[in-house]
């Protein structure tokens, strides 16, 4: 009876919304119950953005995530805002390329992933989100890497199919980063 309640947060341009959508889409492809809920409004303009994702074997109750099984934070304000929302024993994924602070929580499983650095290494700063997503599915197994890639194909469309390999690599590097 797996259920993941995820908060994904970061700056406007870091792809947190699409990260959440890919996860949701993948869940749907695996016939799970899913929902995706964005923050919206003026804080999005140049400021921070976040979304709530639920992937569950049961019908989704409220799409709002108030107690996250996982939080993925891409920048410092997001860490500050959301670390408190993670449930005991929940997961906190920190983009350590941009956040040099540690979490103050000791009752959760926190991972620091230098997502921007890894993305830079792979040659495309815009896939830092995929690095984080790779780490996330590695830890939770809530959806498979294949489903994420399948979703990505749907989202990118045939014209951009050439971007799939680099995204796959990003997922793998993210998984690696938390695989010990």
């Amino acid at each position, binding site marked *: 009876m797996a259920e993941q309640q995820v908060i994904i947060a970061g700056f406007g341009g870091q792809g947190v919304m699409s990260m959440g*959508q890919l996860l*949701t*889409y993948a869940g*749907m492809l695996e016939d799970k119950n*899913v*929902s*995706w*809920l*964005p923050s*919206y*409004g*003026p804080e999005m303009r140049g400021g921070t953005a976040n979304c709530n994702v639920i992937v569950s074997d049961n019908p*989704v*109750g*409220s*799409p*709002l995530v*108030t107690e996250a099984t996982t939080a993925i934070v891409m920048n410092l304000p997001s860490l500050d805002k959301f670390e408190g929302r993670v449930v005991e024993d929940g997961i906190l994924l920190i983009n350590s390329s941009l956040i040099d602070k540690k979490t103050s929580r000791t009752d959760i499983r926190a991972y620091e992933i230098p997502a921007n650095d890894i993305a830079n290494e792979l040659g495309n700063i815009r896939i830092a989100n995929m690095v984080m997503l790779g780490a996330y599915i590695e830890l939770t197994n809530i959806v498979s890497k294949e489903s994420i890639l399948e979703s990505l194909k749907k989202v990118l469309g045939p014209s951009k199919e050439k971007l799939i390999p680099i995204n796959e690599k990003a997922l793998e590097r993210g998984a690696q980063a938390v695989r010990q």
Partner: protein
Amino acid sequence: MAKVLMKGNEAIGAAAIKAECRYYFGYPITPSSELPEYLSRELPKVDGVFLQAESETAAINMLYGAAGAGARAMTGSSSPGISLKQEGISYIAGAELPCVIVNIVRGGPGLGSIQPSQADYFQATKGGGHGDYRMVVLAPDSIQETVDLVIEGFDIADQYRNPVMILGDGVIGQMMEPVEFKDPPKRDLPPKDWATTGTKDSNGRKRVINSLYIEAEACEQMNLKLQAKYREIQKNEIKFETFGTEGAEIILSAYGITSRVTKNAIKILEKEGIKAGMVRPITLWPFPYKEFEKAAEIDSVKAFLSIEMSMGQMVEDVRLGVNGKKPVYFYGRAGGVVPEPLEIVEEVKKILGGVK
């Protein structure tokens, strides 16, 4: 058709197209703007017309014209924009024009906030415009239900020649969930033999769309006709979801997204050994008064609690349904704040502590 993942606002647009709606007139406003945006992309592909009106006032009157001309047509907006449509809605109801109006409610009053709210319940169900009229008000709690109700909503509108409102909120408008576009239950829809399409189409018999009855007696006749229709709708179209009322200590009532938060709360309460039942109105008008009446007669039930993203609106209808048989309480958040399950749990405990 396979499931697709869609944002509520876009799903409303897609459902409208599926329902053969081909005309949309609207003015953008957060958090509903993806609806006009989607239809500006998609309607032209099916030879439909998307027209951005100069204002909500213009939009509702374009809708009047298009509906009066026999088309399936829609408009949408959010709270302040819906307030601007009130005169037009009253005209549409008075002239008995079928159409669908979407309100993706945000925090009010005034400019308020753009966050999700349910504070337009009164406006939608009791008549924000002037005169005795009613809209059918459909309040879905998921994107799938949104799509189903939009599609059925067009049929309901056509069947009764009445405006239908889809009452969502910022969450319904903005969230994504998987949806399937299914055919609605089949209805026998009357021909639109009243629509103004030129007398070419009616053997020269002139048709008029109108709500003016200069003699009070004639105006009263129009009202009596409307009331008869409303009774018919009340008889046929009430929708709700009820569960766990038998043996429940308390009945929670909530609609739309709040009902899903409430369901989470009910699960938590269950774990804590408190049995809470639920009545979720899906049609806010016609309201399922009987369902509350029935629940009020269940012995185990000690109280009712209406949970809303408002300062207490639907609770009046709950009271009217319960009619003094049990105490009715209210818990609400305002201005765009969505309640959390634990708040509801606390409130229930407080109430049961109190009435025990």
